[in-house]
Structure formats: structure tokens, C-alpha cells
């Protein structure tokens, strides 16, 4: 207990006495934490925008005009039973007409033509959303299969737009899985680089003290008594760097949030604040552990003499 108090006190005193060297180390740890925070936020943006895009992909089954509703509903039910299907939305022919009118309300010739026909020229449709983009193919195959036909659906289906969408869906699928893999790889590389840089900086600050370390050992100090203050210093680097990083991201996310919200519909500033606690914990733990472990490893070399 007495030792622990002395070690912490010595760490604090060393930190203040080392002056500019301490702050240089804090700066480097700050950069690492900056990278980690930026990556967390980037991942969120990436996932959010991918979700947005995924949301826009669907397959629609158009039915012939006047197709009986009970047969459509039984098809809907069997689709809903497929494990790949997330949701199936039924739009009846009258609803389809209303939506059409709503969409074209500025387009007078079209509305006029529609009024002239009197009868509803539109059929009902089912809008299908899959759980994963890659599953649209199997849903489309199901539609082609005997199963669906056996229900007598073939006669009432006008068209399925899967094949028009297929190209886009496939491309999107490739982009999304590529983006996720690349994002993961870039994250790993960036974090590895910044950890190496931090480790080396801390090693340099300890290298400056290597003579002192030898003297402390000659005076008869235990390993822990020598190593402890350096680990405390490492923890202080992490702590201060966390504070700086979290404060710095306040204006950064505000600025990004303003610029991105109109484009993505994603408010980064609000996200940053609503998740501030989790982000702080991650950043603090990374910073403090990085500082302590780097110091621990860096000093080992000089201790074992």
C-alpha cells in the first residue's frame, strides 16, 4: 500500500518534471486515439449508409389486373414463410392507383389520361424485402419454381422485376461485402501503425531515463519500484490523451454532422453525444492500456541488466 502510493506519486512527479517530453508522448497517444475514434465513427457512417442502400433494394411482384385477392394473399403467406424473407407488403390495386396519382400529381397529362380511362389500369403488387441482399436470388427462384406455380400463381403474375434489378443487386452485393472487408483491413492497419508509433515514442521517453533505471537498480530498488512510476506515467499519457481526443471530437462531429445530415440523413453530432459514454470507455481503455503496456514492455530491456 505504501509502495503503491509512492509509485503513483513518483509517476506524477516524473510526468510534470519531464515537461515537454511528457507532452510529446501525450500528443502521440492522442493521435492514436484520434485514429481509433475516427474509425469508430467511420464504421458507423459506413454501416448506416449501407443499411440505407440495402433498404432501397427490393423485389416486386406485379399481378394482372383483376387478379383475385385471396390467391394473392395465399401467395403472400407462402412467401412470408420463406426463411429469407424479412417482410412482404401487399399493395392492393386501389392503393396502387392512389400512390400512382400521388406520385404524378404534378403531371397533368398523365392524370388526365387516367381520368379518361375510368377503370383502374393498375394491378395489385407484393413488395418483398429480404433479410440479406444475397437472398433475393433464392426468392426469385422460388417464384419460378413449381411450388409457387402449383399454387396457381403463374396465371395471375404479370411480371417480377427481379431480373431488371438483378444487375444492380449483384453489384451492390459485391460493393457492400468489399467495403466491409476493406474497412476492417484498413482499421486493423491504421490501429497497428498508431500503436507501433506510440510504443516507440514511449520507448524513447524511457530510453532517456535508462541511466536512471540502472542507478535505481544499483541502489537496490525492486523491479516493480522502478517500473511502477513509468507505468503510471503511461497511464497519465492515456488519460490526458483521452480528454483531449473527446473534447476535440466535439467541434469535429458538429461540423461533419452539419455537412452530412443533408446528404446521408445521418447526424454524427447527435450520434457522438448519444454514444459518448461508450466511446469514452473505449477510448479511455485503449489509451490507458496502450500507455501502461507500452511502458511495461519498453522498460523490460533496461530492467533485466
Amino acid at each position: 500500500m505504501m509502495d503503491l502510493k509512492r509509485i503513483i506519486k513518483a509517476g506524477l512527479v516524473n510526468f510534470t518534471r519531464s515537461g515537454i517530453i511528457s507532452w510529446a508522448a501525450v500528443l502521440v497517444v492522442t493521435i492514436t486515439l484520434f485514429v481509433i475514434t475516427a474509425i469508430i465513427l467511420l464504421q458507423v457512417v459506413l454501416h448506416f449508409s449501407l443499411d440505407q442502400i440495402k433498404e432501397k433494394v427490393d423485389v416486386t411482384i406485379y399481378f394482372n389486373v383483376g387478379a383475385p385477392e385471396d390467391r394473392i394473399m395465399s401467395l403472400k403467406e407462402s412467401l412470408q414463410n420463406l426463411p429469407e424473407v424479412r417482410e412482404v407488403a401487399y399493395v392492393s390495386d386501389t392503393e396502387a392507383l392512389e400512390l400512382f396519382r400521388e406520385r404524378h400529381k404534378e403531371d397533368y397529362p398523365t392524370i388526365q389520361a387516367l381520368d379518361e380511362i375510368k377503370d383502374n389500369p393498375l394491378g395489385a403488387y407484393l413488395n418483398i424485402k429480404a433479410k440479406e441482399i444475397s437472398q433475393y436470388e433464392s426468392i426469385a427462384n422460388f417464384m419460378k419454381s413449381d411450388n409457387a406455380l402449383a399454387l396457381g400463381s403463374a396465371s395471375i403474375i404479370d411480371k417480377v422485376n427481379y431480373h431488371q434489378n438483378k444487375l444492380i443487386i449483384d453489384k451492390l452485393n459485391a460493393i457492400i461485402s468489399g467495403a466491409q472487408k476493406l474497412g476492417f483491413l484498413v482499421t486493423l492497419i491504421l490501429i497497428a501503425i498508431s500503436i507501433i508509433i506510440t510504443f516507440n515514442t514511449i520507448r524513447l521517453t524511457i530510453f532517456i531515463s535508462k541511466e536512471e533505471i540502472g542507478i535505481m537498480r544499483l541502489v537496490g530498488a525492486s523491479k516493480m519500484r522502478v517500473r511502477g512510476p513509468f507505468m503510471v506515467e503511461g497511464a497519465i499519457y492515456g488519460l490526458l490523451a483521452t480528454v483531449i481526443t473527446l473534447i476535440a471530437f466535439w467541434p469535429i462531429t458538429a461540423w461533419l454532422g452539419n455537412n452530412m445530415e443533408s446528404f446521408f440523413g445521418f447526424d454524427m453530432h447527435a450520434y457522438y453525444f448519444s454514444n459518448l459514454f461508450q466511446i469514452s470507455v473505449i477510448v479511455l481503455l485503449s489509451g490507458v492500456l496502450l500507455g501502461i503496456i507500452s511502458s511495461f514492455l519498453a522498460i523490460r530491456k533496461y530492467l533485466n541488466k
Partner: protein
Amino acid sequence: MIYFNNVSKIYNKDSVALDDVTLTVATGEFVSVVGHSGAGKTTLVKMILADDVPTSGTVFFESINVHKLKNNDLTKLRRRIGVVFQDFKLLSNKTAYENIAFAMEAVGKTNEEIESDVPHVLELVDLGNRIFHFPHQMSGGEQQRLAIARAIINQPELIIADEPTGNLDAINTHEIVQILKKINDLGTTVVLTTHNRGVVDSVGKRVITMEKGKIIRDDKEGKYVI
């Protein structure tokens, strides 16, 4: 107290630091080890501290073979020995007070003991007005007196002074020698290495003369003869 049995230290064929040295130092002795630079004096004292490993032979501190010690036990051994170096080896980012306090903390002294003993020992080496100075704010003589204060604070059984006056002028040298003699008078064994004739002659005790890693003379009340 200290026993060297046929100790040799050979770095390579052309550089032999110790050549078959056998030596005994009794408790309470004041031994001066003299010789030119490179005669093996520093290697000799490093062997006692297990700061260097012999190529052959054994070194005992009382009944302990110092080179057989594990890390923890070595730390304990070093706490029984106070060391003074030519280049002082003070902790540069600690004040005079903290330098001494650190040595006391290392052996587990309480805060009360530290608070009462440190000013006392600094007074003893005439540094009472330098308590809160950093080493770089002190003269060479003051730094060496601080190093001695640190070496004696834990009442070691042995003081090793390796060229303690090498960087000092005549007046400071005289002071340091007087302090070491006083420590010896109080019962602590002292091993002093030096190539300063004045120092050896003013001590007037046992003198071991080394040359090229060998002991060439061992005089009871010696003088500097090379």
C-alpha cells in the same frame, strides 16, 4: 567479508581485465585499490556487486556466491552495499532529498523514518542548505557528498567507492576522503579504488596495487607505489 578465488575476466585475448585474482577483505577494513587506468580496479569492484560476470573463479560476499544469486536476492545483496561512483550516478530528475529518500524507499523504510533521517544525513555531509536542489544545480564536490550520503543512509556493511575523487579538485578530494575515513571509523568496511597518489597516502591503510589485471602488491600500511 569479501573473498575472490582465482577470478579472471577476459573480454578477448588482448583485453584481460582480471587475471587470476585471489583476495580477502576482512570486516571493518579500509582497502585502497590503486593502479593505472585499465588495470582492472573497476572490474574488481563490479564483481563484488555482481554487475559483471567473471570468466572463471568465484566471488563470495560472506557466505554468498554473488554470481549464483537470483534477481530478487541480488537486489537484497545490493541493499547491504553502498556504492559511490566517479560519475556520482545520482538521479538527475530528483532533488537531493528525493535521491536519498529513494534509496530508503527501496529498502522499505517508512515515511517517518525518511522524514527524520534524510535531513540528518544531508547535514552530516554538509549539504543541509542544498536539500531541495537538483544534482545539476550542485558542484561536483556537493554531488559526490550527496552520493556518499545516499550510500550510507541504509547503514550498509560495505561501502564501495569507485574513483570517487576522479572528477574533483584537491579540496573536495580531501573532504571526500575524510568522510570515507569517518565512515570506516564507525565500523563500515570501505573499498576505495583510485589512481590519486594524494588520496592513498592520506588514508594510510591497506593498499592493493594492480597492474594489467593482476595484484602486484598488497601492503598493510601502504603508500602509492607505481
